[in-house]
């Protein structure tokens, strides 16, 4: 397209300068805070951070919930996306519309609704008591379960949409062909659908995992301070403890975890493909 590379670089230069000034440099400065001390560059901030039992616990909880939400979203997402792409065009459009709809509602409103639904007098507890599964209302609010449900509901649409676009690119006769040749549904999924839609899973998985790690409102409202996550801990460090070093350690961890998730998902997907 371009006669030489220089021309292409020249055209990209303004955007690159803009991104560097307003994004890369500030982020770099922010992150470097965690490695700086009066004596020079050091990892002591990270050692301090992980030496506190609370921080270890919050780190592991964030990781665990991120993985659980991503896995649950992938399972539900594949089923939903497969059902939607099999629909006739009109119905498909309407269903995709329904999937996208929650994304247009503020996460605050969506999360607040869970407080009503999961409350002691909410519909979930009413149903549980009606069928006799419990005599006393179960406490859901301000537990990891509530945060898990909230995050899953928040990010599931992103996974479904990514998988729909991936499944749409799946050759129409690939699945019937495999079935005719004797593959069961599990083999069809593992050997045909998964390898051919791995890009969608990587994109969806990264979005859901990163979203779950960095969501603030949902853990803050549904978990509160009893279920601290890295993001809510970060907020606490900045606004209350005024500890910007710990905050930039957390920010660094979040970024590293997001990138690692992306790389890991890519690995898993390509490893399957090579077999």
């Amino acid at each position: 397209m371009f006669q030489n590379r220089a021309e292409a670089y020249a055209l990209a230069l303004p955007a690159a300068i803009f991104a560097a000034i307003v994004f890369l440099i500030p982020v770099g400065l922010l992150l470097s805070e965690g490695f700086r001390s009066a004596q020079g560059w050091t990892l002591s901030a990270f050692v301090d951070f992980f030496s506190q039992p609370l921080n270890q616990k919050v780190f592991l909880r964030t990781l665990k919930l991120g993985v659980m939400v991503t896995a649950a979203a992938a399972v539900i997402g594949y089923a939903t996306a497969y059902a939607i792409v099999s629909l006739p065009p009109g119905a498909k459009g309407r269903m995709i519309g329904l999937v996208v709809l929650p994304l247009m509602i503020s996460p605050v409103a969506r999360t607040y609704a869970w407080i009503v639904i999961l409350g002691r007098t909410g519909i979930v507890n009413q149903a549980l008591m009606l069928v006799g599964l419990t005599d006393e209302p179960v406490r859901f609010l301000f537990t990891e379960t509530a945060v898990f449900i909230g995050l899953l509901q928040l990010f599931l649409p992103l996974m479904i949409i990514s998988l729909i676009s991936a499944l749409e690119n799946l050759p129409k006769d690939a699945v019937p062909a495999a079935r005719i040749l004797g593959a069961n549904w599990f083999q069809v999924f593992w050997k045909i659908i998964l390898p051919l839609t791995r890009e969608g899973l990587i994109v969806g998985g990264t979005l859901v995992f990163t979203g779950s790690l960095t969501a603030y409102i949902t853990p803050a409202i549904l978990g509160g301070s009893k279920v601290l996550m890295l993001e809510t801990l970060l907020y606490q460090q900045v606004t209350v403890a005024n500890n910007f070093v710990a905050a930039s350690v957390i920010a660094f961890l979040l970024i590293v975890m997001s990138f690692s998730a992306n790389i890991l998902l890519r690995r898993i997907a390509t490893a399957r493909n090579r077999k």
Partner: protein
Amino acid sequence: MKRQAVLASATALILGLGLGSAQAQEKTLTISVYAFAQDEYKKMLYDPFEAQCGCKLVVETGNSVERLAKMEANKANPVIDMAVISMADALQASRAGLIDAIDTAKLTNFDKLYDIAKDPNGDGMSVGYTFYATSIVYRTDKMQIDSWADLLKPEYASHVAFPNITTNQGPPALFMLGEALGQNTPDLKAAIEAVAERKDDIVTFYVKSSQLVQLMQQEEIWAAPIGRFSWAPFTKLDLPLGWATPKEGQTGGMNVMVLTKGTKNADLALQFMDYWLSTEVQTKLAEALVDSPANSEVVVPDEVADNITYGEETASSLKLIPSAVALDNRDGWLAEWNSKVGQ
């Protein structure tokens, strides 16, 4: 003729402009306040004061961390003439050399203040203009609260929302809990320990008091320590709710006025403080439920009094955490809380 008239009016205009700006330069007061109820303040305080002093008020708003940081940054060349901050922040500003002593002889309304507001930190560097009580809102049909320690009774704890240590209500509530346990040391160790023992029962450690109204309505909670300024929405719920008067007393917080060190407008700032403390302004702000009055001459109707922190008896029963205790222990409280309750 026409030309002359144009010239003359142009000259007048220029002169007028010059005069105007000269005057404005002479009398501009820059204040730094909390970013809340600014419409009411403008109507009841800023506009009338501008009319009275013939000066211009510049209002800067923000939370206390931001505003203190700004004062610190402009220490050599102050932008702000006076600020309103919390009692503990005033002590911090005083230790950092950011504020000057207030010449209370120049405040005609000073003697009308409740004793608690006259010199909250005992260093002559600040004057309280409003305070609030913190006590417990509770379901009168489900429980009886006579002491702060009742919150942690086994049969009650699983229906209680306790303020997180990071909120303004957290430390005062722990302070009173320590008082009730008979072990009120500045490190709040006994109180934090007692809360930690019940941490799995306690419904949540709340951060925003606005959330509590819904939790109360859903019967998720029966009781929570709150500031009096959050009380009004609870009274609108169709539930039997009461404001506890525990035997250890109520706690709370106070906001104070401070004078920036090195300001060139000290007299004007004092004039403004005096006006803010006047019975007239304090009454208007109380009636609008903006600030509870620190001026003891303020008289308000019962329905207003019910929604604010009001009266000699209340004022003298408030047990506030001394600012020095708060400043010196804040980090320690958070660390202790995070290690005992946070995990």
